[in-house]
């Protein structure tokens, strides 16, 4: 039972917002020592599993290519491409973004989007503009927050449930790395990626439907706000 203290270290570390690298390192040492490994054995375990999990860091080799393309306007061109999908409601626009994010992530292009790269400069402003266009009025703060929150959610859900359909992504490589080294299996990343497809479809249907429902909520609340706005007018007064 005492080895479970390693899990407690992880929880405490994350709750108190310590540097995650440090938390993981300390939890590893604590767990190893509590599991009756000698300090030398702990070092060897660190070294061995670090060597065995090198495949997880392989994606670093993508960085120079993406870096080069970003220098030459990859993001700007992606923006132009999405910009052509102009006349949409907020929910429909975000559903399209969800789909684009899932499909591009499924092709391994997950650094194309993200809260800093696309959501703040591009997706959230476009979604807000779309909402204001379709409801015909300026959004109150509360609804603006809602549209922004849903913009972030479309990005996150899209990348999470798209990327696992790509074979060279960290999580797929972590699964094969862990299982193949711990249980001496020969599982191929492609087999895992296939099983991610049904859930990618579920994620699109569920979150897409919720984004469309958001449209209705926006319309209803805007209508309500407009009605409340009209209410204080004295009866029979000319408008």
């Amino acid at each position, binding site marked *: 039972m005492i080895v479970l203290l390693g899990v407690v270290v992880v929880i405490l570390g*994350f709750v108190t917002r310590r540097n995650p690298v440090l938390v993981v390192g300390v939890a590893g040492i604590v*767990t*190893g020592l509590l599991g009756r490994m000698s300090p030398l054995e702990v070092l060897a375990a660190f070294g061995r599993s670090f060597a065995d999990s090198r495949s*997880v860091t392989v994606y670093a080799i993508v960085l120079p290519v993406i870096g080069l393309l970003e220098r*030459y306007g990859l993001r700007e*061109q992606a923006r132009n491409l999405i910009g052509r999908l102009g006349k949409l409601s907020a929910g429909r626009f975000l559903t399209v973004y969800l789909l684009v994010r899932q499909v591009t992530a499924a092709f391994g292009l997950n650094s194309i989007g993200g809260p800093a790269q696309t959501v703040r400069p591009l997706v959230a402003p476009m979604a807000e503009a779309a909402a204001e266009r379709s409801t015909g009025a300026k959004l109150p703060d509360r609804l603006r927050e809602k549209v*922004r*929150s849903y913009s972030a959610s479309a990005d996150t859900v899209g990348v999470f449930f798209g990327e696992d359909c790509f074979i060279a992504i960290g*999580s797929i490589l972590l699964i094969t790395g862990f299982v193949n080294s711990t249980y001496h299996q020969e599982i191929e990343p492609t087999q895992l990626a296939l099983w991610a497809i049904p859930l990618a479809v579920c994620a699109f249907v569920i979150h897409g439907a919720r984004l469309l429902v958001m449209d209705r909520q926006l319309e209803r609340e805007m209508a309500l706000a407009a009605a409340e706005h009209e209410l204080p007018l004295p009866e029979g007064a000319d408008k």
Partner: protein
Amino acid sequence: MIKVEWLYWLIGLVFVVMAFQMAADRSNPKRWTSAAFWGLLGLTFPYGTGVANATAGNGGWTLPAEPLGVAVLALIVLAGFNFLGKGVPVTTTDAQREAAATRLGSKIFIPALTIPLVAIVCASVLDESGLFETGKATLLGLGLGCIAALVVGMLVTGEKKVSVPIQSGRSMLEAMGSALLLPQLLAVLGSIFAAAGVGTQVGDIVNGVLPDDSRYLAVIAYCVGMFLFTVIMGNAFAAFPVMTAAIGWPVLIQQMHANEPAVLAIGMLAGFAGTLCTPMAANFNIVPATLLELKDQYGPIKAQLPTGIALLGCCTVIMALFAF
């Protein structure tokens, strides 16, 4: 035959070259420690070949694992106590990018699409050709795809200097910082948890509660366990080795003979559903709220919570119906 170790050496070399660039970059206030971190990380890749040879016992030159363990601790100290800094990125201005985007149009997507295309061709068509080390076609495909994409990218953009993509990649590396190391460290933590018997302990607790031979309850325990553990840890990568060693592997796969890739892939995704619902996964849930200047820092989580719970249900149902 192309070996996966060659790819690791290439990555190690890229890190070491970037480390030299960092050491020379006076705009980085922590240039020496940054260079030490990435250089050391680069060296662990070729050194790891010797350690992996010793572990697998497949011949070739072998090296002891303990020095690598010391190096990993050094990396943890450098990253954990904020010794990593970044320089001013050498890059283009917004106007230059706009001009390049207008000039190149959608051609800019060709190199980006080269990577997955080559990876998929290698993993499917060329896998059986004997060109690649057995079981490593996907990884090698990614490596070859990147080399091909770099060549195509330089042709498409008309960039002549190889140092330019390396510089750009280095800026991205500096921006990511220690986040790049975290997945590998979490894999290390997972295998130490496994070696120390954390999974077995959790498994004993679960098995004490779980009735024998109940396939559906075992599936629910694994999926819900992945979900909850991820909510607590903030990271499905950390939850995966523990829950898999506890229930996924011994109960679902060994005892009940479930389809291995189905259980593992869906189990991980149940964890991702948990990531949608937790403030612990700060980079996905709290950072966007800050970036979007929301008053409610839990706004994105509230938008994701129903989807996360519904997807947990989908994972459980799909695994229960199709994994056996």
